[in-house]
């Protein structure tokens, strides 16, 4: 991909580079943050005194058709997408302003470059020139502005982009004057508060850029986009076929779109059906593999790729529901669970042990705390002291295999400590009805690049997704403070206390950070697992 980003370096980027060189900041996190501020990838690597990773050793080949196993769900307005799969089908023609790469950097796609003001309240976006829609219209700044306005509209049910565009929105829609169209290919965003995550958010899967004529129903039925592919067929629950669009010249011609045709097959949720399909040669690449199946797919000759992430399973207590309103009960249950055992028995040791505070070591502001205690005897005593020796706890989970297995392990440990507990598994369709109010249940959380992001989303008092019903005045205050500290070291000091509060208050049992895996046949290239499940099939090829 060509890269013509501005040569002006954001001051914070130099600071981050210094931190990174001093070992205070992970390279991955450095790349995320530096590129978010508008620094190009080679420049970011340059700041570290490194060369950007060379292009892939193997040269991609053009042609061929690829069959991939992936859920095909009924399509709807991109901004309301709630599954990465919905986005992945459309990635061939609906492109993004920026893309989040496997190494944690942001790369420009429909934007040529972007620049943040030094206080991160003003962003200048330059739209790539020479991009045309597949109906012949050229892409302009007005189109981008139209998309941003769509994202900020909170009146559409399920529009999850609205929450990410808070700094340019007001009363559930775009704030007047938040977008300034400078010329045909330049626009400027005026933020009401500093937000270094706004560009990162535009790489999120619901942020697909649609043509102004799109009315908001089905992006497959009316596939106007800027990408090199177009849909041939799309059948929910069965599969979808995508082919290279012969009537359209892609802006990035020659740097992708190797495959002639991609066929997605929806084989249901049972991995043993996928295995059978792989064995009979019906599928060449899988969307995601988990648990014991990783070894099984290895055994049939597929090649595995791994993405280390800050995705996790939060086995949280809802503090509005007795007996979990009692901090001693929550602490006792935490004490009864050894996260390492849960990782081994529930997730096959395919991740890193976590520490019950939902901040990951790959986050820059992560502060190392003393190791967690594990003391089942004391757990039982504490439960007995609260008069709950005969109480039967209930742990609820969705019926997804690895999540259910993890919760079974958590429950087995609590049971081992001599505390009564039973498990309830709810079907996927039912689970989400009450996910915010279950007394004790598990929820899957995907990764966010910064540690404060999830804390803001899920643990600040009164926010929409606060499933733990966690309300702590000190926590809110410190979090507010942390949001305003651009320097990771300074932020880490506040973060340490935030993490401690999370642990002291016994907010959740968070056993591990997941690694994600994908299997493909050896002749499939460019298709490594992506930390946010992206399937950019325009970069895939077959030899």
């Amino acid at each position: 991909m060509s890269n013509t980003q501005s040569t002006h370096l954001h001051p914070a980027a130099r600071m981050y580079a210094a931190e990174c060189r001093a070992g205070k900041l992970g390279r991955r996190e450095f790349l995320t943050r530096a590129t978010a501020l508008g620094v190009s990838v080679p420049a970011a690597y340059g700041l570290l005194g490194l060369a950007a990773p060379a292009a892939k050793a193997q040269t991609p080949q053009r042609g061929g058709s690829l069959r991939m196993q992936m859920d095909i769900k009924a399509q709807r307005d991109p901004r309301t997408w709630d599954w990465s799969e919905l986005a992945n089908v459309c990635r061939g023609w609906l492109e993004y302003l920026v893309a989040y790469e496997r190494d944690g950097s942001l790369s420009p796609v429909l934007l040529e470059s972007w620049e943040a003001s030094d206080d991160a309240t003003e962003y200048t976006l330059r739209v790539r020139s020479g991009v045309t829609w597949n109906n012949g219209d050229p892409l302009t700044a007005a189109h981008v502005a139209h998309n941003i306005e769509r994202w900020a509209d909170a009146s559409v049910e399920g529009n999850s982009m609205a929450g990410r565009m808070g700094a340019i929105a007001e009363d559930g829609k775009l704030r007047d004057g938040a977008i300034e169209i400078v010329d045909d290919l330049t626009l400027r965003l005026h933020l009401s508060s500093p937000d270094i995550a706004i560009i990162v958010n535009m790489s999120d899967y619901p942020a697909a850029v649609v043509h102004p004529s799109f009315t908001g129903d089905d992006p497959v039925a009316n596939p106007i986009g800027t990408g090199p592919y177009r849909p041939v067929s799309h059948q929910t629950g069965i599969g979808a076929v995508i082919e290279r669009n012969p009537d359209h010249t892609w802006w990035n011609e020659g740097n992708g779109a190797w495959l002639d045709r991609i066929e997605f097959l929806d084989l249901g949720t049972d991995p043993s059906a996928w295995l059978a399909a792989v064995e009979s040669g019906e599928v060449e690449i899988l969307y995601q593999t988990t648990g014991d199946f990783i070894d099984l797919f290895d055994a049939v000759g597929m090649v595995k790729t791994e993405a280390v992430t800050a995705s996790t399973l939060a086995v949280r207590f809802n503090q509005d529901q007795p007996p979990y309103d009692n901090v001693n009960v929550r602490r006792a249950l935490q004490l009864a669970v050894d996260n390492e055992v849960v990782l081994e028995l529930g997730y096959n040791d395919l991740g890193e042990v976590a520490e019950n505070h939902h901040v990951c070591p790959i986050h820059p502001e992560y502060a190392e705390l003393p190791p967690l205690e594990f003391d089942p005897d004391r757990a039982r005593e504490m439960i007995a002291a609260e008069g709950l020796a005969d109480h039967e706890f209930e742990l609820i989970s969705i019926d997804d295999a690895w999540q259910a297995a993890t919760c079974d392990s958590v429950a087995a440990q609590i049971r081992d400590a001599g505390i009564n507990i039973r498990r309830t598994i709810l079907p996927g369709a039912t689970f989400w009805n009450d996910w915010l109010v279950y007394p004790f249940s598990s929820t899957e959380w995907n990764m966010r690049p910064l540690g404060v992001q999830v804390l803001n989303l899920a643990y600040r008092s009164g926010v929409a997704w606060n499933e733990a019903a966690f309300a702590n005045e000190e926590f809110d205050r410190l979090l507010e403070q942390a949001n305003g500290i651009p320097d990771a070291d300074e932020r880490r000091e506040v973060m340490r206390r935030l993490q401690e509060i999370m642990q002291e208050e016994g907010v959740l049992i968070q056993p591990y950070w997941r690694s994600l895996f994908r299997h493909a046949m050896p002749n499939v290239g460019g298709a490594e697992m992506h930390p946010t499940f992206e399937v950019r099939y325009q970069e895939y090829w077959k030899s």
Partner: protein
Amino acid sequence: MLFFLARRVGMMLLTALCLTVLVFYLTNLPAKLETLAKTQAGARISDAEVASWLERNGYGAPMPVRYGEWLGVVPGWVHESPDGTLRGRCIARAADPAEAPTYCGLLQGYWGWSTRFNDAVGSVIATRLGATGMLMLWVMIVMVPSALAVGVLAGMREGSRADRTLSTGAIVSTATPEYVSGVVFIAFFASSTVGLSPLLREWGLLDSPVLFQGNARSAMEGITFWNFTLPVVTIALYGMGYIARMTRASMTEVMTQQYIRTARLKGASFRAIVLKHALRNALIAPFTVIMLQFPWLLNGVVIVEVLFSYPGFGWTLVEAAGNNDIELLLACAVVAVVVVLLTQLISDIGYVYLNPRIRIS
């Protein structure tokens, strides 16, 4: 005869009507509607968003009214959004909202819209039923002759060693549910690491990695021996035992009849007795059983279609039920009722034709 048929058809309609009311009620409970909204508009949407989604998509009206809409006796819902665009049950069917019909329900031949598959229910059901039809056809082709053969062979000489062996085999096959046999078949025939395939490869008898395909998705494009054998055999095996046992019982009974004894005394060969005299009479009972097997086989079809990810009627039913796809489920219920009652009718009529002693009054 005509009166009899009219009565049966009337009964069928009444049964279907009662069942759809029941299904409609169970799928339209408030909690189920919430599930639907969350699967359609996003799992993590708020309660207010759920309410507005339901209102905007025509789920706001009381249940009887909406059932009427589905039947086509109440005008379809119309919703006008603040910017003036009209949405409605019937509007999607016409290019111009002004020309949309007022009623669009079952009576007008419209089966509704599947939320899960984003397609007209009528066309979803038609394609899927076709797929299941192929599966059932092959199941019947495999199951019926082999079951009858086993039954007749066993019942020919009651108590013989052949009878004992075949009867035990039949019992074992009825004791093996599809979810066990299907899985074992896949492991044994369709795995490149265990079972038969690696052995065959070692002996050089097999070029592909597996003998049979453990996934029948490719049968949608073209049925081959290799992709269709396992699902067909899995269903057939479970149903076979029952029919074989019925045939055996019927055959043993016939073999003790006077006319067989007479034929035997006449000096007719055993072969001739079985083929000429016994067989026809012995097959009356199994015929009704085979027909009544249909609804029973439906269970097996659902399991097998899910297990082998073959998108037929059973698979559709599970998808629809799992996603609370109301109108698709209603259609599934109607189809199932018609299939069950129709096979009962055929079984009754066939019984009359096969057995001259019975006449429908």
